C-alpha cells in the first residue's frame, strides 16, 4: 500500500494504482475524455492533467502511477487553467450542434464546459468542414466534425472485437476517423461505440432524433435475450402530462459487471428491446369476451383452480400438462416445481424456448433465453415438447411463453390442441399463438417484476422492477402463489410466500446450488 495526498486529503492506495483511479476511490472525479477503464491509457485528450508537487509540468492522472508521499492537486489554479485550455482547443474546432445532437445532456464536452469552461469563444477563424451524418454501420451514424479524436472507437474495434473497421487517417488537424470503403462496422458489438463516444461523433441510428436524454429515467436490469445475463440499464420515458410519447423504452445501455459481461453488451441485447414495448398482453383474454367482457384475475384463478381440482383430484398428474419457457425466474421455476411437479404430481412438463442461435465468440450464447440453467438447477430436465405426448389424456394445459409457433406450425398445434380440453396461455406477449388458446393471462416482463436469474456460468443475479406493469399484467410468481392458495394445497406453506425475497430464501434452503451464493 502507498500513502499519498490528494487535494490535502491523505489516503492509502494499492501500489500501481493510477492517480485517476485513486481519486475515484475517494469520490474525486478527474475529468477525462480518452481514458476508458477497458483499455490501457492513451493520453491524447490531455484533459486529466493534474499537479504533482515537485514536478515542473502537469502530469496525466490516467497513466501516472502513485508513489509513496506523492502530493497531488486536482483543483489548483494551474490545473483548472489547463482544463480550460483543453476545452478551448476542443470547442474551437467543434461544431455548435447541440440543438441537433443526440448526445446533448450526456455529452462530456457539455459537462466539462459547464464545470470548467464558461468562456466566450475567441476563435475567429473558419472551422474545418468534414463529413456529417454518414452511416458507418447498421446502427451507427458518424459525424467527423464532432469527433475529438479520442480514438476510443478505434481502440474498441481493435482490442475488443478485433475487427478494426475504423482507422485514423491523415495527419494533424486533417486527422479523421473513418471506415475503409465498403467495410462498415458490422459486428455484434457496434452499439457500444455510440455509448463510449464521449461526444456526439458516433450516435445510434435507433435513437436518432427520438427523444432527449434528460427525459429518460434509468433503471438497472438484466438482459433476457440470451443466457449470458448481461447487466443493462433500461432507459424509459415516463411520459408527459399533456401528450403521449410514442415509445416507452427508448434505449438499452451496458452496465459494468466484471463477473458477467465486462463493460459491454451485444447488439442483440441492445437493440432487441421491442419485447418491452410491443405486442404486450395487457388484459386477460377469454373466448367469450365479447359477451362478458374481460374477466378479473380473481375470477380467472378460481376458474383455473376448479379445472385443476375436478374431476377426481388424484388423477391430476396425468390430466394436466405444462409447457414452460426459460424466461421464468429462479423463484418462479421453484414455485412451478413445488406446486405442479411436487404437490400436484404433474408429469407432462415440457420446455419450449426461442430457437438457438450462433455464438459470437464473446458474450452471446446460443441459448436465447436467460434462465435455462436456473430451470436445470431447480430440477427440471428441460424436456423438449412432443406434441403427441402432450395431447395424451390432457384436459388442462398451461403454457408459459409465446414461442410455440417458432417450432411448430399452426396446423399441427391446432390438431394437438383440439384433443385438449382447456388451454391457457400465460405470457407477457400476444402473438399469433394467442389465438390457439382459450384464455390468455397477461404477465410482466423481466423489467416489470423482481426475481433472480441464473446465467450460463451459474451466476445468480437478482433484478428489480424498472418499469410499471402494463394493464392487468402481473408477475408469474404472484399468479402462481395466488393459484396455489386458491387450490388450498399445502396452504400454510404457500401462504407464507408473500414476496420474492421470501421465496428466494425458501429456494436457498431447499436447493444447495442457490444457497449462500452471491
Amino acid at each position, binding site marked *: 500500500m502507498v500513502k499519498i495526498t490528494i487535494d490535502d486529503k491523505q489516503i492509502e492506495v494499492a501500489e500501481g494504482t493510477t492517480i485517476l483511479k485513486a481519486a475515484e476511490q475517494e469520490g474525486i472525479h478527474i475529468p477525462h475524455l480518452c481514458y476508458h477503464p477497458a483499455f490501457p491509457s492513451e493520453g491524447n485528450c490531455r484533459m486529466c492533467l493534474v499537479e504533482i508537487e515537485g514536478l515542473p509540468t502537469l502530469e496525466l492522472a490516467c497513466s501516472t502511477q502513485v508513489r509513496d508521499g506523492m502530493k497531488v492537486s486536482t483543483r489548483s489554479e494551474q490545473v483548472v487553467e489547463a482544463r480550460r485550455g483543453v476545452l478551448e482547443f476542443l470547442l474551437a474546432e467543434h461544431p455548435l450542434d447541440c440543438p441537433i445532437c443526440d448526445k446533448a445532456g450526456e455529452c462530456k464536452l457539455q459537462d466539462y464546459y459547464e464545470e470548467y469552461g464558461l468562456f466566450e469563444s475567441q476563435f475567429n477563424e473558419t472551422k474545418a468542414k468534414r463529413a456529417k451524418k454518414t452511416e458507418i454501420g447498421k446502427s451507427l451514424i458518424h459525424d467527423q466534425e464532432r469527433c475529438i479524436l479520442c480514438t476510443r472507437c478505434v481502440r474498441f474495434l481493435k482490442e475488443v472485437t478485433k475487427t*478494426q*473497421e*475504423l*482507422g*485514423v*487517417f*491523415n*495527419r494533424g488537424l486533417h486527422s479523421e476517423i473513418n*471506415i*475503409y*470503403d465498403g*467495410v462498415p462496422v458490422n459486428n455484434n458489438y457496434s452499439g457500444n461505440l455510440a455509448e463510449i463516444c464521449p461526444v456526439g461523433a458516433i450516435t445510434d441510428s435507433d435513437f436518432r432524433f427520438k427523444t432527449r436524454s434528460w427525459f429518460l429515467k434509468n433503471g438497472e436490469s438484466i438482459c433476457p435475450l440470451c443466457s449470458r445475463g448481461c447487466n443493462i440499464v433500461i432507459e424509459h420515458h415516463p411520459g408527459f402530462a399533456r401528450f403521449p410519447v410514442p415509445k416507452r423504452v427508448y434505449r438499452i445501455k451496458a452496465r459494468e459487471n466484471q463477473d458477467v459481461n465486462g463493460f459491454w453488451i451485444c447488439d442483440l441485447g441492445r437493440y432487441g428491446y421491442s419485447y418491452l414495448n410491443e405486442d404486450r398482453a395487457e388484459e386477460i383474454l377469454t373466448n367469450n369476451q365479447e359477451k362478458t367482457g374481460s374477466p378479473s384475475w380473481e375470477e380467472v384463478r378460481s376458474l383455473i383452480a376448479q379445472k385443476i381440482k375436478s374431476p377426481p383430484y388424484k388423477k391430476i398428474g396425468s390430466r394436466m400438462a405444462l409447457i414452460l419457457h426459460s424466461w421464468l425466474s429462479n423463484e418462479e421455476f421453484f414455485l412451478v416445481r413445488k406446486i405442479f411437479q411436487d404437490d400436484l404430481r404433474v408429469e407432462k412438463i415440457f420446455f419450449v424456448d426461442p430457437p438457438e442461435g450462433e455464438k459470437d465468440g464473446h458474450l452471446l450464447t446460443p441459448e436465447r433465453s436467460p434462465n435455462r440453467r436456473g430451470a436445470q438447477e431447480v430440477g427440471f430436465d428441460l424436456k423438449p415438447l412432443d406434441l403427441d405426448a402432450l395431447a395424451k389424456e390432457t384436459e388442462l394445459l398451461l403454457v408459459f411463453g409465446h414461442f410455440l409457433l417458432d417450432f411448430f406450425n399452426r396446423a399441427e398445434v391446432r390438431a394437438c390442441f383440439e384433443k385438449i380440453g382447456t388451454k391457457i396461455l400465460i405470457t407477457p406477449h400476444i402473438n399469433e399463438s394467442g389465438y390457439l388458446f382459450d384464455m390468455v393471462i397477461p404477465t410482466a416482463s423481466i423489467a416489470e417484476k423482481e426475481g433472480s436469474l441464473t446465467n450460463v456460468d451459474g451466476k445468480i443475479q437478482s433484478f428489480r422492477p424498472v418499469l410499471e406493469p402494463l394493464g392487468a399484467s402481473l408477475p408469474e410468481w404472484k399468479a402462481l402463489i395466488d393459484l396455489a392458495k386458491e387450490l388450498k394445497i399445502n396452504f400454510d406453506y404457500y401462504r407464507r410466500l408473500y414476496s420474492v425475497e421470501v421465496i428466494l430464501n425458501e429456494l436457498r434452503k431447499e436447493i444447495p446450488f442457490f444457497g449462500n451464493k452471491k
Partner: protein
Amino acid sequence: MSPEFSENTKKKVDEILSRYPQKEAAILPVLHLTQQEFGCISPEEEKLVAKLLGVKPIKVREVVTFYSMLNREPLGKYHIQVCSNLSCSLLGVENLLDYLKKKLGVELGETTQDKKFTLSTVECLGACEQAPCMMVNFDYYGNLDAKKIDKILENLK
C-alpha cells in the same frame, strides 16, 4: 485485375521482410517499392500490401495517409517539390515558386497537362546551406535561380 509485384521487386520484398521480427514493420520500405512500381498506392495496392504483411487494408491506408511522401493518386513523371521552410524562404524561394507556377502553368498540387510535372511544396529538405532548394523525385537541386530552374527542367526528359 489485382496488381502483382514484378519478379525483381518480389525478391527485394522478400529480403526486406527478413530483416524484421514482425512483418508489419516492413510496411514503409514495401510501400516505397510499391509506389515506385505502380506510381501510387491506390486501394488496389493497399490490398496487395495488406495481404503481403498480414494486416487489414485499413491499416495500410492509415499509414499511407500519414506520411507526406506516399501518394494515393498518380503524379506526373517528375514530382517537383520546392522547399517552403525557413532558410529557403529567407532566400527568396517564394519567387521561384511563383516562377515555376507560371512556367508550368499549374497551381500547387497540380500536374501539367502532358503529365510530365507535378508541382508541390515540401518541408525542410535538410539542404539549407544551398537554399533555395528543391527536390525532383529524389534528386536535390540547390542554390536555385530562374535560370538554373530553366536548365534543370530542360534536362528532364
